[in-house]
């Protein structure tokens, strides 16, 4: 099983190596994201902090990985059989809005995304993010929030 199939630079090669590692008829499973709600929230906050409406959504793998067909095609080419994909919606439960901001801004991806920002823009991000969260979760106050996270789970099988 794997939760990182969107990251190899050569997917075909990675799948071929994984397939070679399996015994005949072994089941395989891959998980990848359709929607990462926290990046959508932080994108809105980033536009607020930078006053730049053209800022792209943070993305750290090829956009085609937001579609189930991408993996189906790769798995077919790699020779896997009985391919089935389900869409799963399992929200990320965070203790509070401020915990959300603290966690997301500590991620390496966020540091890469903001590496060219001015100090002033970086200083504004917490207030901007809290503002966005207040709009999205007006009743949460200091309580927990649920951030939408939608993933695809693919199940397949190595042939004989």
């Amino acid at each position, binding site marked *: *099983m794997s939760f990182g199939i969107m990251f190899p630079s050569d997917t075909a090669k990675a799948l071929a190596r994984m397939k070679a590692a399996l015994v005949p008829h072994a089941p395989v*499973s891959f998980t990848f994201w359709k929607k990462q709600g926290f990046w959508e929230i932080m994108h809105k906050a980033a536009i607020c902090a930078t006053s730049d409406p053209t800022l792209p959504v943070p993305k750290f793998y090829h956009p085609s990985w937001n579609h189930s067909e991408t993996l189906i095609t790769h798995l077919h080419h790699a020779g896997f059989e009985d391919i089935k994909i389900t869409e799963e919606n399992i929200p990320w439960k965070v203790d509070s809005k401020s915990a959300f901001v603290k966690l997301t801004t500590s991620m*390496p991806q966020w540091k890469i995304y903001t590496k060219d920002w001015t100090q002033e823009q970086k200083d504004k991000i917490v207030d901007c993010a809290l503002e966005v969260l207040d709009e999205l979760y007006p009743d949460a106050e200091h309580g927990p929030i649920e951030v939408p996270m939608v993933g695809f789970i693919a199940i397949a099988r190595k042939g004989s």
Partner: protein
Amino acid sequence: MSTNQGFRLSWDTHSSADGSLQSVISLTETICTPFSLRQFELLGLTPPVDSHPRVLDNACGSGRPAEVLREEYERRGQPIDITCCDISPGMIAAVQQRIESGNWKNMKAHVVNAEVWPPFWDIL
């Protein structure tokens, strides 16, 4: 170097430089583990099962999903062997720490680039 490779390398570089690896681990575990548990169900790995599964968790992160699976088999007294692989040395160090502190004999961890790794029988 591709964009993906650049990101994968910087995952460790960024988090080891400022000590944020622990928050990365905590964040990814909270978000990803529920999806992995669902993955186990769909794979038919959730016990009881009639076999002795040998599981390869590739891109295992800090190993929390594998730990949950291992615990469930242990609780039911059923055998399972799990090999955890990830390209990130920081994540594999976290898995190794779990293995050592729990003295788990049926779980192994390796730093592996999925595109160039050796055959499975060499890893096991």
